[in-house]
C-alpha cells in the first residue's frame, strides 16, 4: 500500500510540475543514462561532456543527474523508472540498446521527455530520437585508410551488428576501396561496447593477420593502445572522442561526437517552452560529427584529399553513399548518381559488394 501511495504521489507531483510545460519551465532536471563509465575516453565521455555543457549553458536553471555503467535491457528500465520518479524532466538514454526500455518507461510517464540516442523507435509523443551521421566521418577515415595501408589489409572492430555500425563499416570500406582498389577489409565483432581487454585482443588478432590500419566502433582507447605496441607499423583512429593522447603514436585522425549543441538546444527548448518531439540526425555540417586533426603521419596530399572530402560532405555536395553501389550479394542497391535515403541507412542490414564475411544475425 505504502509503495502505491508513494508512486501515486510521485506521479501527482510530476503532473503538477508539468503543468507549466506550455509556458516553459523555471528549472529543468536533465538526466543522462550512460552505457559505460564517463572515464572511457570515448563514447560515454563525449556524452558526459555534452551534459556538462548543458550545466554550463544554463547554470542554476538546470540540474544534472547521470548514471554510468547501466546495462542494456531490464536494468535500464529500472534506472529509467527511478529517474522519472526522481523528478527528471528530460532523460537522455545514450545507447542503442536502451531503445525498448526507453519506450516502455516513456509510456508510463507521459510528462517526462525521453531522448534516445541512435535508435529509431518513437512509440509515444514524449519520445524523441537523436543521432549523428557518423558514416560521414567514416568516409573520411576510409579514404585515409585506403591511402595509408601498405599491406592492403584494413580492419574494423565492430561492436554489435546494428544498422549504426554496419553503416559505418560500409562507408569506411567504400571510401577505402575508392582510394585503393586493392584494399581488403576484415571485420571483427567484439559483441561489446566496452571491454578494453577484449578490444585489445581484437586489435591484436587483426594485427597478427597483417592488418595495418584499424578503425574501431567500440568505446575505449584499447585498440589504439594495442596499435601503439607495434612502434608505428599500425595506425588507427580515435573513435567517438579525439583520443589525442595517441597523437604521437598510432592515431592519425578521429571522429569526435559533439553532443553538446544538441543537448543545450533540447534542454533550452524545454526551458522556454518550444520543446517538440523530433527525430534529429545531424552530421559534419551540423557540427555533431567532427573530424579530429589529421596528424603529420599522413602525407600532406592525402590529408588535403581527406579534408576536401570532409568539406564536400559538410557542404552537401557529396553524399558518402552515392551510387552505383551493389549489395554484398551483387544485387543493385543504389543506381548511378542516386544517394541513399535515410530510411535505407537507418535499417541497414547488409554489407556492400566487396566486403567478405557475413553479418551475424
Amino acid at each position, binding site marked *: 500500500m505504502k509503495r502505491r501511495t508513494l508512486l501515486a504521489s510521485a506521479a501527482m507531483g510530476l503532473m503538477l510540475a508539468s503543468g507549466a510545460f506550455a509556458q516553459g519551465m523555471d528549472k529543468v532536471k536533465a538526466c543522462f543514462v550512460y552505457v*559505460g*563509465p*564517463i*572515464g*572511457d*575516453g570515448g563514447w560515454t565521455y563525449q556524452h558526459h561532456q555534452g551534459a556538462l555543457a548543458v550545466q554550463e549553458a544554463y547554470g542554476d536553471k538546470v540540474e544534472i543527474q547521470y548514471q*554510468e*555503467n547501466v546495462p542494456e535491457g531490464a536494468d535500464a528500465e529500472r534506472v529509467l523508472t527511478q529517474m522519472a520518479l526522481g523528478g527528471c524532466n528530460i532523460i537522455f538514454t545514450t545507447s542503442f540498446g536502451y531503445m525498448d526500455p526507453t519506450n516502455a518507461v516513456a509510456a508510463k510517464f507521459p510528462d517526462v521527455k525521453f531522448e534516445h540516442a541512435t535508435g529509431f523507435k518513437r512509440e509515444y509523443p514524449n519520445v524523441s530520437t537523436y543521432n549523428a551521421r557518423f558514416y560521414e566521418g567514416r568516409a573520411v577515415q576510409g579514404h585515409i585508410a585506403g591511402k595509408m595501408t601498405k599491406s592492403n589489409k584494413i*580492419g574494423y572492430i565492430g561492436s554489435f551488428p546494428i544498422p549504426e555500425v554496419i553503416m559505418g563499416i560500409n562507408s569506411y570500406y567504400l571510401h577505402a576501396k575508392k582510394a585503393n582498389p586493392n584494399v581488403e577489409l*576484415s*571485420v*571483427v*565483432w567484439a*559483441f*561489446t561496447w*566496452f*571491454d*578494453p*581487454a*577484449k578490444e*585489445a*585482443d*581484437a586489435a*591484436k*588478432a*587483426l594485427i*597478427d*593477420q597483417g*592488418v595495418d590500419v584499424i578503425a574501431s566502433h567500440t568505446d*575505449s*582507447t*584499447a585498440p589504439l*593502445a*594495442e596499435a*601503439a605496441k607495434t612502434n608505428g607499423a599500425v595506425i588507427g583512429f580515435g573513435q567517438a572522442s579525439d*583520443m589525442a*593522447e595517441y597523437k604521437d603514436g598510432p592515431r592519425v585522425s578521429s571522429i569526435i561526437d559533439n553532443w553538446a549543441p544538441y543537448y543545450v538546444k533540447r534542454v533550452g527548448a524545454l526551458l522556454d517552452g518550444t520543446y517538440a518531439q523530433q527525430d534529429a540526425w545531424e552530421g559534419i555540417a551540423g557540427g555533431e560529427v567532427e573530424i579530429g586533426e589529421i596528424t603529420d603521419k599522413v602525407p600532406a596530399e592525402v590529408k588535403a584529399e581527406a579534408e576536401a572530402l570532409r568539406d564536400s560532405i559538410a557542404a552537401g555536395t557529396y553524399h558518402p553513399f552515392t551510387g552505383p553501389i551493389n549489395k554484398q550479394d551483387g544485387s543493385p542497391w543504389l543506381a548511378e548518381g542516386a544517394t541513399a535515403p535515410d530510411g535505407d541507412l537507418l535499417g541497414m542490414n547488409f554489407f556492400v559488394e566487396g566486403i*567478405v*564475411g*557475413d553479418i*551475424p*544475425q
Partner: protein
Amino acid sequence: MDIGGINPVILIATLMASAVPILMAALGETVVERAGVLNLGVEGMMVIGALGGFVVAVHTGSPVLGFIGGAVCGAALSLIFAALTQIFLANQVATGLALTLFGLGVSSLGGQGYNGIKPPPTGQLLPDFLADLPVVGPIVFGHDWMVYFSILMTAVLWWVLKSTRIGLIIRAVGESHEAAHALGYKVNRIRLMCIAFGGAMAGIGGAYVSLARVPQWVDGITAGAGWIALAIVVFASWKPWRVLIGAYLFGGITVLQLNLQVAGSGIPVEYLSMAPYLITILVLVIMSAGRRGKANGAPASLGQNFHASR
C-alpha cells in the same frame, strides 16, 4: 605454417599472454578456497590491483614496482573481506559480492585523472636473438616476465599445496576447520593469510591488464575477468595445473575466435563468441568427471565461517 589463415605459433604466444590475468587471479582464489573461504570479490580485487599497479608504475616509472603496488592494493582490499568474514563472521558470499562493488567504485573514484596516460612498457624478458628463433622463439622466449612468473606460480602452488607442510595445513583448515582447530592451528589466522595472498594474486592479475595487456587505465578495465577466474577455479576442481589449463583454454579460444573472424572462417560469429565459455566449461567438467566423487574435491568447509566457541 598457417592453418586456415591463422598462424598457430602467434596464436599460442598470444594466448599465453592474454591468459595471465585470469590465471593469476584464479590461482590466488584456488588457495583461498582450499583454505575454506569463498571470496567472490575477485573482480573487485583485480580492478583495484589494476588501478594501484597503474598508479605506482606511472609515478615510479617502473613496471615491476607497479606489479608490487597492484599486489599490495589487492591484498589490502582483501583484508577488508578478511576482517569482515574472519573476525566479524559476516556471510562470505554477501561480503564477497560487496567487495566487488566496492572495488569497482573505489577504483573508479581513484582513477580520476589517470585516463589517457601511458604506463611504462613491460618489456620482453629475454634478448631478441632468442625471441627471433622460429616457432620456439615467440612461444617460449618472447614473453614479458609476468608470463613466466604466472607459470612459475602455478608450479609453486601445486608443489606447496601437494607436498609441503604449509599446504597440508591450508588443506586441513579448508577440509575440516574443527579438526584443524583441535590440532592447534589458528584457523582464522591461516585463512586471513590465504585471503591476503589471494588478494595479492588478483591484484597482480589486474595490474597485468592495465600495465601490459591493454596498457592504460579506464574505469572497469577488468570487465568481468574476475568472474571467469572464479568459475575456472571450480571447474578446475581446485587444482593449480588444471587452473592453468582452464585459463589457457579460455584465453586461447577467446584469441582464436577473434582470429577466426579476421580470417573469415565462415563459422557464424555467434557460435565463435560463446565458444570460450562453452568449451572451457565443457573440457574442465569432462576432466573432473573422469574420476567420480574423489576428483570433484570441493573443500568440505568451503564458505563456512569458523569461531572457536562453536
